């Protein structure tokens, strides 16, 4: 009897609590900006990768130089720099008014300490050519730092802009053995924000860095709530749990889906914006495998697919159509290349000239008894890739090309990129500041889909040599000419089908002002954001 009465009273208590609970407090204009990300920001080690989140590393740490919109490199922690005539010695003159958020001065010794820590684990940064090019680092005086390179590697300044690994931790944040590869003591940087609290699985709290040398953030605090699900994020925004949606739109790591973005955009009482192109969604076409080893087939595919329809109906206009591997906005990429217009007749003519014929009653073309058939490989649970692949399948069927859809889980997909077992395969360029130089550099690595796609080209050796040359070119004109050569060849050889330019999106209420896109994909300038005054 006692047990039963306990249950009854528990029930009563619950029912009462259900009735009298207060609703959520409305999001008044507080001095905290509420934002969300799919995971905690991590320990914020500036020299390490996952689980550190790039956008947060960029809030706390700064670089010597900064990538400005349009690809220009501008002074940042270094107020100026000199480059020796042979292009191998860079001398940086550091700003004198910079302090780390714990009050210690930012000087050449701190810069060298960070460079040395990164070089100690150089193999971790193998993917970045610049690290491999460093020969020596030297403190000239308290605010002058000298960097010597093995070769005149021109993208040095661009790669110094990267969010990781070459940004600066305060000496007080270093572990006792000085090796930051394992861990750091505390995330102390020079940036506009400092990380003050992390609750695992719940949130990370940042505070404005009161000692910041530049324009201090308008908000006192930035709360980054952990919301892994993009629908959950949309709900959190609608209910005022967060004030701002900022980041890539679309799939996987996207902040919200593009359909949700369009719903917000059509509501009329919200401010939404789409950034300039950040990177390119692209399909690599294998020049080394039958039947796409035939240039006519590759060109026919590019003319045969109705890209405008894909952009309109699948990307819902949120991502603009891409016609070249890199957006013309990227440095050295405004080449005026003629795009492959959607022209099924021209595509059919190309195939016919190349000897592809339709046997009586056959659905697909053949040549020498072999059917014109290829695989499009995508990540099985990526609905966007799947839909694009299906549209391409439909468009190419009309030309008599058989397309098999190969949707697999992520690891198998990546293994195909690496091994070259694909007819066409999805990929993204890396975006600013990596495009075009780092992306081109990686085309020389057999582990990349680009290498595998290009390896069948008769001039592949020549392309690789020119990429090697452009990276150590000193003369601006030579560099532009080499890029023109490389990118024009790749375009004319039709080894890429660019789809769309990936963009960042923002959604917020009109009372929030100063929301601007950063120069690269993971730089979110929260410091300019403020409430309407």
């Amino acid at each position, binding site marked *: 009897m006692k047990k*039963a009465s306990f249950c009854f009273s*528990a029930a009563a208590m619950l029912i009462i*609590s259900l009735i009298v609970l207060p*609703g959520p407090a409305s999001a008044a204009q507080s001095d905290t900006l509420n934002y969300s990300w799919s*995971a905690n920001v991590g320990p914020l080690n500036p020299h390490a990768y996952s689980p550190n989140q790039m956008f947060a590393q960029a809030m706390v740490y700064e670089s010597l130089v900064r990538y400005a919109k349009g690809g220009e490199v501008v002074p940042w922690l270094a107020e100026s720099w000199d480059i020796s005539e042979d292009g191998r010695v860079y001398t940086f003159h550091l700003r004198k008014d910079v302090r780390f958020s714990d009050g210690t001065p930012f000087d050449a010794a701190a810069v060298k300490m960070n460079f040395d820590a990164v070089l100690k684990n150089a193999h971790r940064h193998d993917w970045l050519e610049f690290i491999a090019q460093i020969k020596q680092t030297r403190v000239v005086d308290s605010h002058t730092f000298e960097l010597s390179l093995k070769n005149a590697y021109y993208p040095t300044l661009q790669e110094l802009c990267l969010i990781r690994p070459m940004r600066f931790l305060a000496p007080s944040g270093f572990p006792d053995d000085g090796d930051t590869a394992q861990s750091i003591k505390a995330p102390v940087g020079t940036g506009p924000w400092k990380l003050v609290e992390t609750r695992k699985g719940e949130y990370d709290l940042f505070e404005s860095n009161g000692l910041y040398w530049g324009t201090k953030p308008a908000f006192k605090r930035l709360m980054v709530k*952990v919301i892994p699900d993009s629908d959950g994020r949309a*709900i959190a925004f609608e209910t005022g749990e967060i004030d701002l949606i900022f980041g890539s739109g679309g799939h996987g790591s996207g902040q919200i889906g593009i359909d949700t973005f369009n719903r917000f955009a059509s509501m009329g009482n919200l401010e939404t914006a789409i950034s300039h192109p950040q990177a390119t969604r692209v399909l690599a076409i294998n020049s080394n495998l039958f039947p796409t080893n035939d240039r006519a087939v590759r060109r026919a595919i590019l003319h045969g697919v109705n890209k405008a329809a894909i952009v309109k109906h699948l990307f819902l206009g949120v991502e603009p159509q891409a016609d070249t591997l890199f957006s013309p906005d990227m440095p050295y990429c405004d080449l005026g290349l003629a795009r492959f217009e959607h022209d099924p007749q021209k595509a059919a003519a190309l195939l016919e000239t190349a000897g592809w014929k339709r046997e009586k009653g056959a659905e697909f073309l053949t040549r020498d008894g072999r059917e014109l058939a290829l695989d499009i490989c995508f990540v099985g649970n990526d609905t966007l890739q799947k839909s694009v692949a299906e549209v391409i399948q439909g468009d190419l069927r009309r030309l008599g090309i058989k397309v098999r859809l190969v949707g697999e889980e992520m*690891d198998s997909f*990546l293994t195909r990129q690496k091994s070259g077992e694909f007819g066409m395969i999805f990929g993204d360029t890396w975006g600013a500041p990596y495009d075009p130089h780092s992306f081109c550099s990686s085309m020389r690595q057999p*582990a990349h889909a680009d290498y595998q796609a290009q390896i069948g080209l008769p001039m592949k050796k020549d392309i690789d040599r020119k990429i090697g040359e452009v990276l150590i070119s000193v003369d601006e004109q030579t560099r532009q000419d080499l890029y023109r050569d490389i990118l024009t060849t790749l375009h004319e050889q039709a080894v890429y089908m660019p789809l769309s330019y990936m963009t960042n999106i923002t959604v917020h209420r009109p009372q929030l002002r100063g929301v601007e896109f950063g120069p690269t994909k993971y730089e979110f300038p929260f410091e300019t954001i403020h409430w309407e005054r």
Partner: protein
Amino acid sequence: MLRYIIKRLLILVPMLLAVSIVVFLILRLGQGDPAMSYLRLSNIPPTDAALEVARQELGLDLLLPVQYARWLGKAVTLDFGRSYVTGLPVLGEILFYLPNTLKLAGFSLLLTLAVSLPLGIWSALKKDRLPDHATRAFAFAGVSMPGFWLGFILVWLFSIQLGWLPPLGMGGLDHMIMPAVSMALMSMAINTRLIRGNMLDNMHARYVLYARVRGLPERVVVGRHVLVNSLIPVITAIGMHVGELFGGAVVAESIFSWPGVGRYAVSAIYNRDYPVMQCFILIMTSIFVLMNLGVDILYAWLDPRIRLEGGGDR
């Protein structure tokens, strides 16, 4: 009784061993390369050299039985390896998130009882009248409604339209209501019907007739005799519900951004974080087995007719 408990606990050992072998094999025999996942999650380009180093680092270059023996050797010292994503010891991570899930599951269980007990009793007492029909409708709806769907409906109604409850995150009791309801609805529905059925059975039992003959007031007959006897099968059902609740937590935690072990496991699956998945499954197996043991013991304590070891008559 003590002997029985020890025996049951000992059975847990071979059971966990078998589960661990199955889990280990299923993960390894599936498509995909853990070394590849490891590199992807560390943002290191997967060159052949990098893959080779990663395979050695993770011990993936060894024969499968050797790999398993190594893992087991460490697991018995409670070292379940490190997460590929965070690089932190897996057990610590899971134990960090587990209390949050227990809190949510416990609240759901409480909610299940708080709703199903009064409803079950009420519908039994008013058999074939309006309350009974209404409860039946509720039970049908409850069993048929998928938890994730209900979760989104609740959010739409109580957070977006009415603004009464916070849509996500962990905080006070108000944060727990929607996830707990979406997890518990099915158990509530089943339990309500179970209690109603038991009550009706017991009402026609002989001892109830005798109680009435003795002139006991109806309140005592129903409250003391019928109800208490009807609750015993409910205890068994609760053992089952705990499993359902943990399963439901995986979904509810993802929808409501509840920082629990279920959401953590889901992200581990997406990331192919094998060490986390292995440890998670073993811990869930242990909890499930221990919970059922607890139910069995409670059963014996509540009903003296039941003996756990041989010798008693039922």
